[in-house]
């Protein structure tokens, strides 16, 4: 299928999409259509696979049937070899989408008796192309003809004619060639194929292999000139154009919580910016993984996706360990929100790791990516390589608006201003967890080294990991400086005692008052009693007086009545 990238209104070179992940971006649309392309590389660099993918994708995705002419492997072998990628060549052949033809050439059977030409090959190829209406042709590795036939002059003339003929036929051709000494191919095929040359390389440094692809030339088209690492896995080849860097990605003002409320408070109360990069560094055993785990947990609790790249621990180990601080990561894994990818750094070269991250991110579309820890990557590359890798990774993730959290182990006791990977300058937020050794114990202190674009606390907080999770506690600023751990607790206890004593003192005073009051009240009561008895006394005489008066009155009246005889 041709894609005319119409950047300008001028007709541009028609291209045939390869369907190989990433390659079409580097070449801006694929291989030159209707022209031959040379794929060269050493043995085992993936030439055959590359060309087979080109063909199969063409047949399945772009409706362009193809002919695969193999000068090396037999068709049965080829069919089996690519079956692992999910390519059913037998079915494709039956559907007339692909035609395999194995060219067998054996020097011992052949005697050259004069002038000849390669018309047989032309007829064979022509017939194969016409029989399925092929638009794509692969010649894998045509150089084998040189080992089968002696007459170089004829061969070279015929090859030149062949490539011209293929161009006339208008088929997009991929020719593979084995890398020679100092030349791209052993037989100098690059002389004949001058439109597009792609070099595949398989490099091993430090016992770790990296596959590299480079477009040596591409006539009539702009293309990426860098070395691009590529990956061969169960889905075939993926090339990733990861060196195209611009600093023009969108930024978000949205904030996402870290999973530790106290940490959010330190960061202006809201947490990290979405799409920012966060570095957590610290010495061994300071709880970096716990912070990362908690961030992942929080992300999944919000219903967003997270990919956790573990370079040190297995997923099960992380899940178990996080369980001990009250985080159930397994449930997120079951729900499909959390995905672990655990691999030793030494499994791949650095570029491969980047590729894997790339691939997984593209596939899983997480909103948060955790890399724990990046320190071990240094074992497979130099510090500057690791830095370049991380820069590219951050750039890629920021472009996708993905928040990334790295953890890094610092080896030095004295925390320098730089981490060992020197990534501190490129991250947005840098949290440092350090050991505070004091009073015969080690405690963790967390502080925010930097956090771009937000208000953040300048304080060191004590980082406490307990059964119920992670928390940050305000450290005590005593006369002896920052107090942590049991010293802090002792100080807290001391304060508590003080409060109790004060409370006690206060109550004693209260009781005193109470007592005084009761004493006074008692006094008041007794006086009252006295008063009442005095009053009684006074009343008594008064009443007696009254009574006496009354009785006297009565008596007097009695006497008076008795005196009166009329009664």
């Amino acid at each position, binding site marked *: 299928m041709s894609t005319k990238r119409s950047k300008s209104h001028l007709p541009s070179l028609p291209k045939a999409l390869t369907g190989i992940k990433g390659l079409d971006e580097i070449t801006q649309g694929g291989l030159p259509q209707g022209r031959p392309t040379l794929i060269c590389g050493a043995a085992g660099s993936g030439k055959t696979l590359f060309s087979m993918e080109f063909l199969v994708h063409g047949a399945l995705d772009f409706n362009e049937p193809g002919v695969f002419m193999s000068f090396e492997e037999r068709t049965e072998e080829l069919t089996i070899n690519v079956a692992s990628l999910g390519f059913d060549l037998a079915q494709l052949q039956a559907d007339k989408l692909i035609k395999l033809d194995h060219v067998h050439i054996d020097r011992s059977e052949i005697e050259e*008796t*004069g002038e*000849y030409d390669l018309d047989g090959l032309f*007829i064979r190829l022509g017939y194969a192309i016409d029989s399925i209406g092929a638009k794509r042709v692969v010649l894998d590795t045509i150089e084998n003809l040189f080992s089968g036939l002696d007459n170089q002059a004829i061969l070279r003339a015929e090859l030149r004619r062949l490539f011209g003929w293929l161009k006339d036929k208008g088929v997009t051709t991929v020719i593979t060639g084995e890398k020679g000494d100092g030349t791209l191919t052993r037989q100098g095929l690059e002389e004949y194929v001058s439109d597009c040359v792609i070099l595949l390389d398989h490099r091993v440094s430090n016992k770790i292999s990296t596959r590299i692809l480079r477009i040596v030339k591409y006539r009539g088209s702009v293309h990426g000139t860098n070395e691009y690492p590529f990956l061969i896995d169960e889905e075939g080849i993926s090339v990733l154009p990861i060196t195209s860097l611009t600093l023009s990605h969108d930024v978000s003002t949205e904030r996402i919580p870290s999973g530790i409320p106290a940490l959010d408070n330190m960061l202006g109360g809201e947490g990290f910016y979405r799409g920012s990069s966060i570095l957590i560094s610290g010495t061994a055993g300071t709880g970096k993984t716990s912070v990362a785990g908690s961030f992942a947990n929080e992300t999944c609790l919000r219903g967003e996706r997270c990919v956790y790249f573990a370079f040190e621990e297995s997923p099960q180990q992380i899940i178990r360990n996080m369980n001990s601080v009250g985080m159930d990561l397994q449930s997120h894994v079951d729900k499909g929100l959390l995905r672990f990818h655990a691999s030793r750094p030494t499994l791949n070269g650095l570029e491969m790791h980047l590729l894997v991250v790339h691939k997984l991110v593209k596939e899983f579309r997480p909103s948060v990516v955790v890399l724990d820890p990046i320190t071990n990557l240094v074992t497979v590359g130099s510090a500057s390589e690791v830095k370049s890798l991380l820069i590219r990774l951050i750039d890629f993730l920021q472009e996708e608006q993905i928040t990334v959290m790295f953890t890094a182990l610092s080896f030095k006791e004295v925390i320098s201003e730089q981490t060992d990977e020197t990534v501190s300058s490129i991250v947005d937020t840098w949290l440092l967890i350090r050991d505070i050794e004091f009073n015969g114990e080690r405690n963790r202190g967390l502080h925010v080294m930097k956090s771009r674009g937000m208000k953040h606390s300048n304080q060191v907080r004590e980082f406490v990991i307990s059964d119920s999770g992670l928390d940050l506690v305000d450290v005590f600023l005593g006369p002896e400086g920052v107090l942590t751990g049991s010293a802090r607790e002792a100080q807290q206890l001391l304060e508590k005692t003080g409060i109790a004593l004060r409370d006690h003192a206060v109550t004693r005073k209260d009781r005193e008052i109470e007592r005084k009051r009761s004493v006074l009240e008692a006094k008041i009561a007794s006086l009252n009693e006295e008063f009442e008895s005095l009053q009684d006394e006074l009343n008594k005489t008064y009443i007696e007086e009254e009574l006496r008066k009354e009785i006297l009155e009565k008596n007097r009246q009695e006497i008076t009545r008795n005196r009166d005889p009329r009664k």
Partner: protein
Amino acid sequence: MSDLSDIGQPSDPQKENSCYVLRLFITGASVNSLRAVTNIKKICDTYIKDNYSLEIIDVYQEKTIAEKEQIIALPLLIKSFPLPEKRLIGDMSDTQKVLKGIGITL
């Protein structure tokens, strides 16, 4: 080679006439093809007269045969009997090589 052809002859006395089974693949009327036809006929008539069968096949007419017979270079002469099978490519102008290839000893 020569030994083999010697063994071949007595083992198949009835088929003496078709002892050498030759097939020549050509491409239409190209220069090489015409030359090859002339040359091989001449060689056969000179050295193994009446002791061979020669079939001339135009690959243009039978395109499927190219894949079936693993044809790359043309003209191609396949000697399928006596064994071993031998393939000769070229215009058959190098008589010595042709004779050696077919397995004819002088």
